[in-house]
């Protein structure tokens, strides 16, 4: 079995989708000859020609809008937004057309398309290259929002996103592009919407997605050395949301920490925490705690490690899950350790 990076897995997913379905088109800024700024589309134009994988001008609203027109005409466009913040000029098209045309036509028209968004931090990009922008999309009914955390999932989820009848915002955690695992890339046509339990445990559930999954896994490993057995749920699909897996896990463990890299205030983790307490109230032995980035614009390279929620912040949250009946001074004084 070969070690495959997430970037290679995504490339393979696009390649296989282009081979299997002639309606699939890949386009965006620099995705053709250059193969994309992260080389996700490397070699696709050479293999499939400029009719199937092509460059566009730097015009994000246009790119997404052209994709809407193509989807209305029977194609399956997969567009790249190059970076998270570069997608904001396209938000008009995404929010007002991509997400709404099925509803507007009462099901007469589908807009099957994938908008690939490299997102989140960890690569020293400052404001416009490291945004965690998922919350804008998840709050827009009509969009599905998916984010892989492993190369195998990157392959499977992208294939499933391309096959999905709904528009999918496919969020690629760019700091994981070069992460590798030994895996066979396989697509079994499983629809989107299922979370994965990455690690089973009985003492508490860590819920994470995208770039936060490796952090949660590492935290669980460290906690195990202290005798705490943590379960890690990788959401994979933010919309649709897998309440079943999440609820079952938290009811089993009775404690829950939600880990996200995005700013905390009104972030996706808030939705997860609310759903968990609504469904698991009688199983909970402690409040659901969120761990996230600070409520600031993404900081420059020398400071990003202070912003990104790492293993220590996750373990600190686990400490606050009231495993002991002793009063927690941090709550009484309001001072965080």
């Amino acid at each position, binding site marked *: 079995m070969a070690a495959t990076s997430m970037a290679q897995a995504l490339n393979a997913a696009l390649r296989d989708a282009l081979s299997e379905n002639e309606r699939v088109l890949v386009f965006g800024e620099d995705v053709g000859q250059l193969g994309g700024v992260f080389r996700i589309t490397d070699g696709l134009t050479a293999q499939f020609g400029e009719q199937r994988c092509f460059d566009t001008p730097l015009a994000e609203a*246009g790119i997404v809008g*052209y994709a809407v*027109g193509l989807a*209305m005409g029977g194609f399956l466009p997969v567009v790249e937004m190059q970076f998270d913040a570069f997608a904001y*000029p396209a938000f008009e*098209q995404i929010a007002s057309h991509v997400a709404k045309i*099925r*509803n507007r036509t*009462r099901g007469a028209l589908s807009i*099957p398309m994938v908008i690939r968004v490299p997102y989140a931090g960890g690569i020293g990009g400052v404001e416009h290259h490291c945004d965690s922008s998922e919350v804008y999309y998840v709050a827009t009914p009509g969009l599905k929002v998916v984010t892989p955390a492993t190369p195998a999932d990157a392959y499977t989820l992208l294939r499933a996103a391309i096959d999905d009848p709904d528009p999918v915002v496919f969020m690629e955690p760019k700091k994981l592009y070069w992460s590798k695992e030994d895996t066979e890339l396989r697509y079994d046509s499983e629809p989107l919407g299922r979370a994965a339990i990455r690690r089973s445990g009985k003492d508490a559930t860590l819920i994470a997605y995208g770039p936060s999954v490796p952090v949660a896994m590492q935290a669980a490993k460290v906690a195990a050395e202290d005798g705490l057995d943590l379960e890690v749920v990788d959401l994979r699909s933010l919309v649709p949301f897998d309440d079943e897996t999440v609820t079952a896990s938290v009811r089993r463990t009775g404690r829950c920490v939600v880990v996200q890299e995005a700013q905390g205030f009104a972030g996706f983790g808030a939705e997860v925490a609310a759903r968990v307490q609504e469904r698991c109230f009688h199983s909970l032995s402690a409040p659901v705690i969120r761990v996230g980035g600070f409520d600031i614009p993404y900081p420059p390279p020398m400071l990003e490690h202070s912003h990104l929620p790492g293993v220590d912040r996750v373990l600190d949250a686990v400490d606050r899950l009231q495993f002991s009946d002793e009063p927690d001074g941090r709550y009484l004084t309001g001072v965080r350790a």
Partner: protein
Amino acid sequence: MSSTETQPEDTPIDHRTDLLRQMLRIRRFEERCAELYSASKIRGFLHLYVGEEAVAVGVTHALSEDDALVSTYRDHGHALARGVPMDAVMAEMYGKATGCSRGRGGSMHLFDVRRRFYGGNAIVAGGLPLSVGLALGDVMSGRRRVSACFFGDGAVAEGEFHECLNLAALWQLPVLFCCENNLYAMGTALNQAQAVTDLALRASSYGLTSWPVDGMDVIAVAEAAQRAVEGVRAGAGPCFLELRTYRFRAHSMYDPDRYRDKEEIERWKQRDPIDGLAADLRAHGELTDDELSGIEEGIKKELDQAVAMAETAPVEPVEDLTRFVYAERPR
């Protein structure tokens, strides 16, 4: 340019009369909508097309059934001219389940996929990329179809306008850009918003064929559109028509219309596209008073029937409120 300059010798009589009939049909529809709005039968926002009828009728006249049309929020005239049945449009105004968007779109989001009428869209310039995408799809599929899109002078200020003109010209896509220049982007005059107000000139800077057309003259519009469509369909690349027109009513039913001179409005009303053509037809003995009354009667009957059907039609059941946000079964 005037109709006498551009009217070819062989324009058949019934053809010109039919253009008149279509314009009247839109005018009467809009007038009825205004009444129904005042009676609270139609709710929400309402933007009327009165004064601009020659544009919709002239442009759609040049399109074939297989061509695509993308519209704006001032879309009633476009939809009717395109052939969306009046009862389906009126039911949509009422928000009824028999409407062309099953009552979910309303005035601003008329949609008819079967007639390749792709909306009905309240985002200024938001529809242009859709038409470019439709055209790109046609090129890739080897189909000789035209994608036409309407938008107003306000759209020229939006980024998507420029993105689309550039790409359509760069890739020589079969798009017919139809700018309904009525001189006002809601309450802001064109010369208050644009340094260069010659919009056909602006378009030509992107390397596409463009010219201004008298949008108050349906024959001029029809002929210009015909010429443009022929070129676009033949693969000569996109075309831009600046259709110089004027809306006789306010932007919407809420708009107090404080930004326009009454004299200016009256001046444009002297150029009413319906009155103009009717007078011309009469002068040439191509239309009698009886024929005109017959046309009016036919329209009134159609309208009465559309209203009656809308009145009694059901609204979409509340159980369907949350449907159609996502696909309901796998493809």
